[in-house]
């Protein structure tokens, strides 16, 4: 095992697959010499050249559609949208075209593309650069949705996304780009199949269902509770669509107490899906307490760093929510 960053893991996944498959092309704003707004693609332009690593104009709609069109005609594009807030500009091509073209053309098309984009707050970039909009794309049949929480997962899941024959929205976590973690040696190629949640910590008293940046935070809370003798299971959903319902349901049956945590604002967030999936299953009969949700406050992400930190679930808030369940 080696220790690399989350950004590096993503870079490796792309670069390694691009070496193997000439049909993979990569396009986005400032992904070339600049290396991407968060430096994720550094070195790729130098390695693959401007035929395959393409800086685009600032035109989110067309670059998403360009990827879809290229995917429908034999390539396997990766497109980067610099901040996930700007998928607002690309939703037409993503939801109406990429997601539906296979179905509405009666199976004639396949649209094997990955749309990578960073989500989340914490960088002081305020309202229009900090959103967590995964709920939108999870609500579009035809799309798959992935949010990795560690370098290991990021690499393995991105490879699976690139090998998938469907449009996959791969939402990265800005605040994790520099976080480090273990991944196998380069020779030990691996993928992590889409649709499998990961139990990041086993426990028997309470289940926390979460994903992305909140995984680490939940694990930290779990460790603190361990010293009190409360044993928390932390499930990292990883693939939001398709969802590993079984894993959630089994854990809920085991612990009888569930807390769903995500950074996205709570109302209309994917937490509703996660909680409801558990409640509308036989796990219901094992529940000892209401299934709690803890999302971000229903406000835009503010600029001031103190406010910014407090509008999303903090360790304190997670801890308090767990206590309510006990």
């Amino acid at each position, binding site marked *: 095992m080696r220790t690399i960053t989350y950004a590096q893991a993503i870079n490796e996944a792309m670069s390694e697959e691009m070496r193997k498959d000439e049909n993979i*092309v990569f396009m986005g704003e400032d992904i070339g010499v600049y290396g991407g707004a968060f430096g994720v693609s550094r070195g790729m332009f130098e390695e693959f050249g401007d*035929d395959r690593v*393409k800086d*685009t*104009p600032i*035109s989110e*709609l*067309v*670059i*998403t*559609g*360009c*990827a*879809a*069109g*290229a*995917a*429908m*005609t*034999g*390539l396997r*594009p990766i497109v980067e949208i610099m901040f996930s807030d700007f998928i607002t500009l690309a939703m*037409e*091509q993503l939801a*109406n*075209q990429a997601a539906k*073209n*296979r*179905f*509405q*053309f*009666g*199976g*004639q*098309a*396949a*649209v*094997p593309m990955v749309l990578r984009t960073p989500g989340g707050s914490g960088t002081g970039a305020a309202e229009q650069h900090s959103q967590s909009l995964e709920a939108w794309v999870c609500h579009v*049949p*035809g799309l*798959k949705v992935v949010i990795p929480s560690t370098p290991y997962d990021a690499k393995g899941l991105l490879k699976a996304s690139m090998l998938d*024959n*469907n449009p996959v929205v791969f939402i990265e976590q800005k605040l994790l780009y520099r976080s480090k973690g273990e991944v196998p040696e380069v020779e030990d190629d691996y993928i992590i199949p889409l649709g499998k949640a990961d139990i990041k910590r086993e426990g028997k008293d309470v289940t926390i269902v979460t994903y992305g940046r909140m995984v680490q935070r939940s694990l930290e809370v779990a460790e603190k509770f361990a010293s009190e003798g409360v044993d928390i299971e932390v499930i990292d959903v990883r693939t939001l669509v398709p969802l590993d319902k079984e894993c959630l349901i089994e854990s809920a049956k085991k612990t009888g107490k569930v807390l769903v945590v995500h950074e996205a604002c709570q109302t209309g967030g994917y937490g509703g899906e996660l909680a409801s999936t558990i409640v509308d299953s036989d796990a219901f009969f094992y529940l000892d307490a209401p299934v709690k949700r803890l999302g971000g406050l229903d406000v835009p992400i503010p600029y001031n760093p103190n406010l910014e930190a407090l509008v999303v679930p903090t360790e304190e808030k997670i801890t308090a929510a767990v206590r309510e369940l006990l």
Partner: protein
Amino acid sequence: MGLPKETHEELYTKMVQCREFEEKAAKLFIQGKVHGTAHFCIGEEATGIGVSSALEVEDYILQTHRGHNQGIGKNMDINRMMAEFLGKETGYCKGKGGCMHIADFSVGSLGANGVVGGGLPIATGAAFSQKYKKSDNITVCYFGDGASNEGAFHESLNLAAAWKLPVLFVCTNNLYGMSTSVKKSMAISDISVRASGYGMKGIALDGNDVVNIYEETKKAKKYVQKNGPMLMVLNTYRWMGHSKSDAQLYRSKEEVNEWKEKCPIKRHREFLIESGMFTAEQIKAIDKSAKQDIENAVAYAEASPEPKIEDIFDDVYAD
């Protein structure tokens, strides 16, 4: 140096087939045999048929919601088009798409689009593939005057120009986007001037002259292969309402009638006869056989099975 006789015949036949197809489709609507909507291109046949017929099977097209002519020009199967219109399993989209989504990847049609301007970004991607694979083929992207006001138009033409992608952008200017006259939706009258904002060549043609459109498309293809994208505006007119239900209060009967005089089919028919290339009888035979093709298509479609609800999850995702 005119076109070979077979080409003239092909263009004429396809235009008549298209007209018959849509007139029949309109009747099926009235008979209540179709649920949904359709957009007819009657009066505009020369545009899609002139352009698509000038392409090879490996060239791609992106069709619009008003694209039967575009598809027939590209040699789509009329039976399967009709079956799709009737929502049957044998239709191009297995009955799931309807005529706003007919597609035939085997002849290079990457699909019609229900979203105004929706095909433009996709076209850049198809052309990107062609360029990336060093193919000599091009992508033709159809869209309307109304679509040229969408952001997708701008971003697509700009990207294609910046990357020198082999796309021929074909704007069917029928003077209206639904009820909205181009006079109200834009402050220009010649849409081809928009090309200059992208450093692109733009031309405007009589959209009812199928022969000229065909020939100009051949030339445009060569130009695009060598220089990158180009914008071709075809000025024409839609005879029917926008879709099923349209009282057409936004335009005068006189205007419609004036354009009916300029019928592209009549024009080509007269040319074929007057030039001595075909006799009136030969033309009649073509007309008759086209009519029969459509009857056959309806029979095929009507005899076809309905899609089954058990198959509904097919094709949401690829394996």
